[in-house]
């Protein structure tokens, strides 16, 4: 086995493409967690986003509508989550897990209702690579970065956008304050409840889009379990990236690289049973998480319901 195997440009190209759902989902989760909401339903929301995107574009024949539907499905679930967590102060992990199960069920149910019983699974057009003018033809970088499909560029923009909103706008300052110390935010007139719901909605839209990226860029169709654990991985990436979108995106690329590498290794290392290579990304995720935990600092009010009249 040689080093070239690990440095193959096609590997990086695939990693960039495969990181899209992770980047979008973790950016969405970061928005929510920064406001104090720990939403563990995102694996389900990614699945539902994939179903919504596929079904809308299948029914209406438009990728744009598909993206819209996916974002909307994320918003709806996230707002329901936020309502339970914010207004009713229910334990967030419990609500998240319940919604996770609901989303999984709803995805297949909707698919069945819309698509019905038919002999061949319908498919939609996938997004084709978009060569960026100028840089697209550069050797290596062009191949890896600038001849990808549109959602790759979108997710790069999302990372930059979420970063700017969080750290350069007053909205971001208030949102982070709500996640660090809701009482402090509330007493200066920041509407913590509305802000958390808004963060949930915006984050939910991104998580839904993460789901849309699966049928629209990879498979052209919806299948059960299409998220394949990417929602959970995104949850880990939030910690890995220390609650910054750029950090999480770096982690997403790393994870996607290991995932792609696994398939490369599968073609050359005949001695190892394939199942052990398939475990690799998940084992890697655990190992990375253990490292990432050292010194990581979550928003102080993360997962804690805010109640004005509760005794501190």
């Amino acid at each position, binding site marked *: 086995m040689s080093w070239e195997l690990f440095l193959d440009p096609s590997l990086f190209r695939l990693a960039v493409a495969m990181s899209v759902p992770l980047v979008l989902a973790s950016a969405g989760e970061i928005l929510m967690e920064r406001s104090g909401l720990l939403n563990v339903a995102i694996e389900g929301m990614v699945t539902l986003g994939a179903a919504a995107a596929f079904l809308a574009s299948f029914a209406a024949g438009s990728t744009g509508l598909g993206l819209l539907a996916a974002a909307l499905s994320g918003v709806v679930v996230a707002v329901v989550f936020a309502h339970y967590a914010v207004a009713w102060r229910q334990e967030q992990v419990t609500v998240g897990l319940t919604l996770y199960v609901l989303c999984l069920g709803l995805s297949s149910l909707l698919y069945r209702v819309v698509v019905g019983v038919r002999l061949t699974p319908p498919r939609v057009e996938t997004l084709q690579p978009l060569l960026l003018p100028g840089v697209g033809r550069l050797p290596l970088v062009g191949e890896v970065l600038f001849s990808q499909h549109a959602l790759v560029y979108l997710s790069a923009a999302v990372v930059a956008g979420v970063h700017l909103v969080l750290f350069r706008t007053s909205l971001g300052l208030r949102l982070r304050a709500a996640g*660090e*110390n809701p009482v402090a935010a509330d*007493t200066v007139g920041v509407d913590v409840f509305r802000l958390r719901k808004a963060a949930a909605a915006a984050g939910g839209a991104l998580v839904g889009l993460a789901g849309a990226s699966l049928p629209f860029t990879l498979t052209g169709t919806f299948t059960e379990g299409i998220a394949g654990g990417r929602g959970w991985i995104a949850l880990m990436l939030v910690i890995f990236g220390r609650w910054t979108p750029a950090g999480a995106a770096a982690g997403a690329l790393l994870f996607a690289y290991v995932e792609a590498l696994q398939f490369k290794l599968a073609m050359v290392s005949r001695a190892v049973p394939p199942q052990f290579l398939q475990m690799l990304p998940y084992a890697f995720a655990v190992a990375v998480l253990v490292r990432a935990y050292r010194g990581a600092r979550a928003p102080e009010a993360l997962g804690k319901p805010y109640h004005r009249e509760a005794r501190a």
Partner: protein
Amino acid sequence: MSPPLVRLRGVYKRFGPVVALDGADFELAAGEIHGLLGENGAGKTTLMNVLAGLYRADAGDLEVLGRPVSIREPRDAVQLGVGMVHQHFELVGHFTALENVILGREGSAWLRPDRLRREVEALMERVGLAVPLDRRVRDLPVGVQQKVEILKALYRGARVLILDEPTTLLTPQEVDALLASLRTLVEAGVSVVFITHKLHEVLRSCDRVTVMRRGRRVVTVDRREADPVRLVEWMVGTAPPPPPAREATRPGSPVLELEAVRVVDERGVAVLDGCSLVVREGELVGVAGVSGNGQQALAAVVAGTARPAAGVLRIRGRPAERHGVLDRMRAGVLTIPEDRLRDGILPRMSVAENVVLGRHRLYFPGVRYDPETSRRLARHAIEEFRIVCPGPDAAAGQLSGGNLQRLIAARVFDAAREREARLLVAHNPTRGLDVPSTEFLHARLVEFCAKGGAVLLISEDLDELLKLADRIGVLYRGRVVAEFAREQFDRYAIGRAMTGGVPA
């Protein structure tokens, strides 16, 4: 006569079964400093929280400048020019001072830090309060944090500034500075509500005083009509009981010895650094200090939840650096934690299950846990310590603060009887307690010493220490910088030591 700046009338507020405000009235005149007095639980904080929009009153009228207003949310209060500095500060620890001040009033969608800094700097100059704007708030001393809080309120254009017990965390020198700056603020057109338990502060700095009792106003008087005896009478109804007589003790052998103990927290900061201290049998040693100078680490290292990184820690003559909580308990160390909700109570478990915590291995040495035994002990504790609760099976989280502290006291002192406990570490044991509860607890501490126990009383209440301690050590930056024997007790000398000015 012009209408008062703020008028609250017949404010009623209950929390579950607790009636916190029972038709309270209050008026604040423009340009005054108005003292708000009352024993613990009288409703001072609740009333002001209603004005600040944090609590919603069940009934009652609010008027500002004679016009009825409705304050449903903190935002409404901010708009009416009401700013409140809460007792335990509501700052975002990981934000800078600047970010904390401007939060919620940033002025533009895009943050413009330079412009905002200039505005805040101008404000600081105008009101004579200066804080380092780029430091993280959690790294600032409490006195400075308080200034950040006041700036926060003023930056929002507060015409009414409510300060809830602003002096408890400050050194005497800092208190002087605060009171002086309040005058400056009044001259700049701000009216101040000043909540405190300290009569001399009221008499020194306020124009008028309101005394509250059991959710109602007792009286509002001009300072000139008030004197300490009448104020206390208004507050508690009768004259306060005399303090327990502390007999001169003959200290026995050392129970707790700390020699140059160093404790490092998870951030790598040495929170205790070369701390030395001895507590002997029958002795009550007080630890004074501005909070944040290592009190928590001291309590933790003695209780066994923190390990010393260097130094010697002996309990009853035996090295105990490596010992955990359980070993300490076996050696007779008891703890009254500073934060009872965080460190003392199992909120969702029953009173009975809470009463046995810490003693459960004693009562249940085998595998079996017997709920009947716990209930029996709990019924006993409820009676003896007059804990107000529905019964042994009630969830502990429903109890009021004072009753929680009684519950913890029951746990501690009962164990003391049974096991001849040797050392009690009490950290701010009476914070937030009313007078009877405080007296009750003080009596227990004294009794414990009289029986030969040793007490380490870490308290931010200097009066409490002056009343009870045989000796007071002053903790400053993680070490005991000065010790005063009873005959040397002097408020200002101790206060100087607390700010690092070691007496000659």
